[in-house]
């Protein structure tokens, strides 16, 4: 029993015949080969699988691929634009926001969404928004610093573009 599922991922439309029970994370990783999103706890607790569905972050282990049919998805592979890293990615490099890297794609997708809505979040706001995502390496300190770095440098980019 399969159904046709068509999803626009990072601007490209993909269509696959899949079982209705297939989870979005497995659709992305195994059907499309987009392995940047990670499959972690499988219980919507850890947040490694966070992607955007119609411009809002979601834990993709808890969404059926069928539910994304006709919708758009953005994954970590879609953060870089025209060969230029997103300020969030640059921030994670500059501030050592990762060690093992397992949680990183989910953290960055949530961070990008936060900064799109709150360009200058304070530390408490950052910690709140990533409170449903688990990092076992950094103790979160460097993740918070990375997102702050991205906030600062996103604004500078905007000012340069405006100037």
């Amino acid at each position, binding site marked *: 029993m399969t159904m046709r599922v068509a999803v626009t991922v990072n601007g490209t439309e993909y269509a696959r015949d899949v079982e209705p*029970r297939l989870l979005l994370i497995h659709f992305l990783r195994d059907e499309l080969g987009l392995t940047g999103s990670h499959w972690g706890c499988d219980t919507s607790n850890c947040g490694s699988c966070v992607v955007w569905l119609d411009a809002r972050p979601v834990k993709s282990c808890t969404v059926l691929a069928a539910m994304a049919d006709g919708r758009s998805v953005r994954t970590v592979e879609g953060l870089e634009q025209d060969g230029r890293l997103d300020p969030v990615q640059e921030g994670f490099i500059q501030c050592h926001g990762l060690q093992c890297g397992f949680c990183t794609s989910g953290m960055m997708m949530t961070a990008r969404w936060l900064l799109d809505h709150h360009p200058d979040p304070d530390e408490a706001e950052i910690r709140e928004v990533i409170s449903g995502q688990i990092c076992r390496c950094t103790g979160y300190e460097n993740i918070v610093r990375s997102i702050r770095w991205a906030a600062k440098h996103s604004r500078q980019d905007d000012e340069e573009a405006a100037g």
Partner: protein
Amino acid sequence: MHYMQVPSQVEYERATSVEHALSLLSRPDTRVVAGGHSLIPMMKLRLAQPGMLVDINGLTELAYIRLAGGQLCIGALARHADLLDSAVAGELFPIFHDAERVMADPIVRLWGTVGGSLCQADPSEDLSAVFAAVRATAVIRGQDGDRLVPVREFHLGPYETVIGPGELLAEVRVPIQPGTGSAYQKVSRRTGDWSVAAAGAALRVGEGGNHEPVISSAGLGLTAVGAEHFVAAEAEAFLAGQPPDEASFGRAGAIAAQHCHPVADQRGPEDYKRHLVAELTTRALRRAWSRASRARAGRPS
């Protein structure tokens, strides 16, 4: 490919209108999926094995929070994040914002729905206790029209509600009463976890014969502690007619603790949970009264 947790085979249909959803739901083995953040994990564990899922995420006509007829009306498809962002809901019923701040996490709250929380009927669910405290009414839509069921009669037991085949929860209505204050207090093991215990209070205060404040009615909701219909009925009955003071609030907490039915589990032993019920009920009442008295004084709560 070897996946650790996969739901069993299921059919999938996307509802294009409420009428279409009701027609699909007339098949008895269907389940509604909205946020899916309780149902899909339960399907992975085979705790739920629906034959067909009816996806109602496209029914945006059920996604609203508005005032109508002296009531706050919350569409079943309103997301937790919408309720937390709603200034009108927070102003009238701060208990909603208290609870939403400590439910799950911000990403889950973007998808989980108010209606889904009630229909999941988890015995540790927060909004069930909140809606019980504020004496809300569930609007259940069927092919023959709407029927209204008090939230206090909505749950039949764990994971069971009064919603039958061919029916859909459409809205939850909360009566707005002047002079009311409300609050929610929860203890969980870590951020975003289910409650070890939690208590919600909605307090309506009037004036007694000597112009001193007197509690005209109290709504007390409890979750995760085996309270029937999420209600602390004996404590509510005690509070009516009492002065809104520390002695009344403490006594109500003790009564609530005595009459609930917590069970020992990985979140704690029974006596600890009863202790929490007493303390959290008292604190929720204290805060509800503080907010009610500010509202009475004409200041924003």
